[in-house]
């Protein structure tokens, strides 16, 4: 929608409503005016997520932890998949934790627009807030799961190095990718409910093409940059580098490839979302 909003506090603000054509600007100013709504929706999602479940917030720990246990038994012990010389459980957990956050954020965000249908068809606010808040709410689960990781590092006597400082950027990389996919998928889902069936499938597929149960060093050297076009490769290998000090398979070109693609997904998602936005209220 082509609209111009001045600051809500200045009176009277003038809004011009007219049909928009084709690709439209991102209107990030409006997003800034409504920034508190991002906070409130994120807070609502977190607050509501584990209501009426017996284990409550424990689920945030159980999901990556159980995956790690299963991976350790089958891939680590039976299939004897190498783990770059680290104990397999922590090798797997440093990957399942960000991966769980990523797939969770992506899935929740993809459903967010349809789930907020009643709000969208009644009240104006920048629609981008909806998938954004969904992605933000998945970060909380991540930090709860992170407590287990700290416990495991103590258990295996792994001392964090200065490389740990890379973590915030790696988390951001995962979130940027999830948000980009979330913009694409949530906008598509308003039109095509098929997306709802694709997402779980996409999540598990994405876990296979990411070095979660196996190290990226298993991929031949010449294919690695291509392999890192999956931004989660950069994230997972980055996590292992930052936390465990694993250097065997991560290179600067890989991180650059991952970051580049992530930003591309986000920007294209943003523009696609904005283009579809004017139809949301009519179609949802």
């Amino acid at each position: 929608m082509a609209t111009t909003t001045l600051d809500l506090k200045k009176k009277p603000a003038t809004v011009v409503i007219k049909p928009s054509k084709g690709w439209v600007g991102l209107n990030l100013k409006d997003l800034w005016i409504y920034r508190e709504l991002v906070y409130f929706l994120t807070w609502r999602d977190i607050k509501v997520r584990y209501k009426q479940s017996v284990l409550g917030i424990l689920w945030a720990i159980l999901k990556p932890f159980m995956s790690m246990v299963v991976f350790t038994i089958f891939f680590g012990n039976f299939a004897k998949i190498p783990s770059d010389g680290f104990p397999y459980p922590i090798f797997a957990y440093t990957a399942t934790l960000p991966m769980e956050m990523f797939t969770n954020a992506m899935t929740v965000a993809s459903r967010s627009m349809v789930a907020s249908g009643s709000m969208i068809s009644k009240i104006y606010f920048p629609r981008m807030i909806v998938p954004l808040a969904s992605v933000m709410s998945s970060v909380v689960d991540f930090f709860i799961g992170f407590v287990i990781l700290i416990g495991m590092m103590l258990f295996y006597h792994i001392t964090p190095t200065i490389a740990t400082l890379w973590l915030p950027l790696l988390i951001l990389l995962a979130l940027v990718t999830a948000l980009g996919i979330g913009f694409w998928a949530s906008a598509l889902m308003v039109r095509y409910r098929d997306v709802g069936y694709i997402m779980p499938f996409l999540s598990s597929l994405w876990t296979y093409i990411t070095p979660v149960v196996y190290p990226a060093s298993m991929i031949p050297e010449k294919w690695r940059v291509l392999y890192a076009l999956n931004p989660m490769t950069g994230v997972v290998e980055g996590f292992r580098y930052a936390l465990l000090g694993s250097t065997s398979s991560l290179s600067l070109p890989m991180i650059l490839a991952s970051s580049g693609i992530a930003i591309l997904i986000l920007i294209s998602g943003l523009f696609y979302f904005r283009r579809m936005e004017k139809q949301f209220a009519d179609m949802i």
Partner: protein
Amino acid sequence: MSNLAVRVEDIGKQYNIFTESTKYTTLRDKIVETIKKPVSTLFNPAGSEKFWALRHVSFTLEHGQVLGIIGKNGAGKSTLLKILSRVVEPTEGIAEIHGRVGSLLEVGTGFHPELTGRENIFLNGAILGMKRAEITRKFDEIVAFSEIEKFIDTPVKRYSSGMYMRLAFAVSAHLEPEILVVDEVLAVGDAEFQRKCLGKMSDVASEGRTVMFVSHNMSAIQRLTQECIILDQGKMIMRAPTAQAVDYYLTNDFAGDGERKYSDDEIPTSAHPFKPIAIRTIDKAGHITDNLVSTDPITIEIEYTLAQDITGLRVGIYLMTSRGEYVFTSFDTDEPEKYQKYSVRKAGHYISRCIIPADFLNSGRFVIGMNASSYMVKRYFADERAINFNVNATGAPGMQWVELRHGPVRPRLDWTIEER
């Protein structure tokens, strides 16, 4: 600077009927459709699947004015409000809005059942565009207005629907926008709460804020607005002072003379299993007519079918003057023995008939609204201006004086004059 609050110029909104009816498009449908498209456009000229929910609507509104928007269901009222509150984008035209718009399109939007009243006030406030500091400042006022102090920390899913509505309205009503857009919220809640809502709305209006008010409730329209626009089939028919607009809306555009038949596409699916067939006014001689005489009894007939048994169904009428004042409300099971006998009304074909006694109505134009509902359970069907008729008071008491008799009724009362 001009005092203009809203300027709407040639606004139009086109909907695609195809997309509307098949809400959930799947990729498979899309593929099939893409293949079929060249074929279908060949047989089906483009544009036949589109319709204008609103077209060529223009008006201006100054700050401090209260404008009523009236029209039948599907006339485009809600579409207009949705465009002005930026929920949907117009297909053509331009609108300028000077000031913050607060909409009461549907109160309680974004309320989450699992969250407490307190949490929902903050969440809903943020969705409506309030800053956190602003909500905190008004919090006590909102709680006091909604009268739910005791339950403020209870999840709203445990609220009664009345409490829920009160809280939702309270948040919206404290938004304090320069321009308030209201759609039918007064249809909910008990009488006391409705009175409070109306009070709040007149406060807003008297504070010099602008209000756009959509309602089917003509008495509320008359109390709150000075001017109205009438929409019909997406077009603006007139803009006039409220009294004139309401009179026009209630008395014009009627199909039959003394009979209103309902076609299938006029009956919402929510009416099922109740299906209205017709409503008629019949004179003393048994003729269907809309010209009736006050000194004769007037028969009103509602014909309908029930596809299933309905428990507690009552079919009835509202009688209104052409100015929208209610004269009376009456249902076919008002009498206790009928209420007993028809506690479950079997599926079938019915006519509910009542007689307005002779020497009761004053001369003038009257409007009958129809309602079929089960008390506190469901309103199956309502048509607030189903049919209208003229009453001629020739021969009524007091006709020897050529004067306007006030009031909608002109009963023949049994006067005695006692000389002492």
